[in-house]
Each structure stands twice: as C-alpha cells, then as structure tokens.
C-alpha cells in the first residue's frame, strides 16, 4: 500500500471516529436538555390545568367574580405565558415563577399574583400585558405591575367581588 493510500485510510478512520464521538455527544446533549424540558413542560401543563380548575370552581362556588369566563381564562393564560416567555430569556441559572391565587381576601373577589424574574423589567410587561389590563379593567378590576429586586416583576390582577345576584 502506498504512503498516500495509507494516509487516506488513516484520515477516513479518524474522521469516522470523530463523527461517532460527535453523534454520541449530540445524543448525550439532547438527553441532558430534553429531560428538564420534559419536566418543565409537564409541570406547566399541570399548573395551567390546576389554575383553570381552581379559578372556575372559585367562580362557581363563591360566585365571587362577575365576568366572561372566556375572557378571564384568556387573561390568566396570557399572564402565565408572558411570565414564562420573559423568564425564558434570562441568563440566570435559577428561574422560579411563583403563582398564587386568593379568593375573597380583604373584600376582593379574586386576586392572582405572578412573580417571576425578568431582565426586561416592568416596562416590557406593561406593553405585553395591555390586553390583560383591558380585560381586568373591563371587569371593574385592575392589573398592577410592580418591579422586584434585584430584577423581575410581580403582576397582581384583582377582580372585584360580584355585586348582587349571579345571572
């Protein structure tokens, strides 16, 4: 075998070994990335369902909020979606979205509070959540955005208690 042919075979072997290692690395990387994504996605699905159920059962049980269920559900989903998207852009290693609801507290019908880290700050949330604010205000409630330290936002939606008898 000529030196040239030997060198070519050696090069091809080296390249095949490299491709194989790259394939293994890709597979390992996909596994490392997909596992936490899988958990996040399943937990988000669970949280959205629990929230939707908690809200609608609150409305049914207490008749606490007077409003269009579709619009109110849209408000909640947009809120959570915005928070998830905003915190997804951050560089921090730990990102926690905290979501709490309270019914009937302090004479208010329903309060939904979302705390999350966001590099973009409260201004961006104000623009992104214009429709949510309009829905809340259209129902006689409010949407408040408070900056948090060192960064991030708290969004507090308050919807008033139903006045009079439910329809």
């Amino acid at each position: 075998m000529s030196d040239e042919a030997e060198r070519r075979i050696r090069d091809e072997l080296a390249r095949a070994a490299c491709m194989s290692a790259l394939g293994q690395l890709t597979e390992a990387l996909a596994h490392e990335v997909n596992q936490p994504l899988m958990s996040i996605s399943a937990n988000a699905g669970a949280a959205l369902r629990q929230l939707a159920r908690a809200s609608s059962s609150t409305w049914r049980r207490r008749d606490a909020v007077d409003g269009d269920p579709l619009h109110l559900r849209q408000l909640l989903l947009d809120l959570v979606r915005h928070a998830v998207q905003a915190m997804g852009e951050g560089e921090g290693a730990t990102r926690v979205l905290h979501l709490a609801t309270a019914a009937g507290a302090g004479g208010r019908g329903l309060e939904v509070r979302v705390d999350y880290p966001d590099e973009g700050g409260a201004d961006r949330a104000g623009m992104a959540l214009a429709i949510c604010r309009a829905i809340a205000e259209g129902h006689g409630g409010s949407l408040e955005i408070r900056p948090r330290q060192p960064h991030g936002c708290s969004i507090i939606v308050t919807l008033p208690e139903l006045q009079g008898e439910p329809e």
Partner: protein
Amino acid sequence: MAATVSITRARPAACICVVDDDAAVRRALANLFDAVGYRCLGFDSGEALLAWPDLAAIDVAVFDIKLRGMDGFALQRRCAARGMGAPVLFFSGHGDAGMEQRALRAGALALLRKPVDPDHLLDQVERALELRGTGR
C-alpha cells in the same frame, strides 16, 4: 403554548404507570396526571415495575425507552408476558423514524418525543383509556 386550556375529565381513578429513571420527569408527569384526576404510579426502572405485585391495576403504561437496566422495549415484552393488558406509550429523547416503527410494531400506541406537549400526551392517554375500556 395553546391559547386555551381544556380540563380533561378523567374516568374515576384511572391508573397511569410511568417508568422513567429521571425523578424530576416522574414527579412532573405525576403532577400533570394528578391535575386531570388520574392516579399515577412512578417507577425508576423496569425491574422496579416488574417487582410490583399488581400489574393488572394499570390502565395505561408510559415507558421511557432509555432506562437503566432493561430498556422500554424489553420492559414491554416482560409486562406482556406477565399478562399486563394496558396499552403502552413510549417516550424517547432522541427517537428517529426507525425507532418509531419499532415501537409501533411492538404494539405500542405511540412513540412520543421528549419534551412532550402535555396536551398531546393527555390526548394519547385518553385514546389509550378508550382502547383499554373496549378491551376489557
């Protein structure tokens, strides 16, 4: 993300079994199944599931293909040999068309790729439960 959320009404106490060696994935799937009213049993290996005495109580089985010890395919065969009649859904983080064909040929209902869309997963579980209902 979907613009609306549908709340799936589960049959009472349908039992979903999850086998995945990642504790966070098991916990998250348990949260999801719990949120729609299913009972969820989690196992960290096929061997652990096979050691469980009540395979007949399982209505739908969800197996990761890549597991420590026996893989999801081997687990499915062992479960079938032990008389587990529940439909099987497979998960894989890096499934290709070949793996999907293999899963379907093995009798699985579907091969779902991680990360899975929760709506899609719940649809598949509903479908599996319907099959399980007619198969009883």
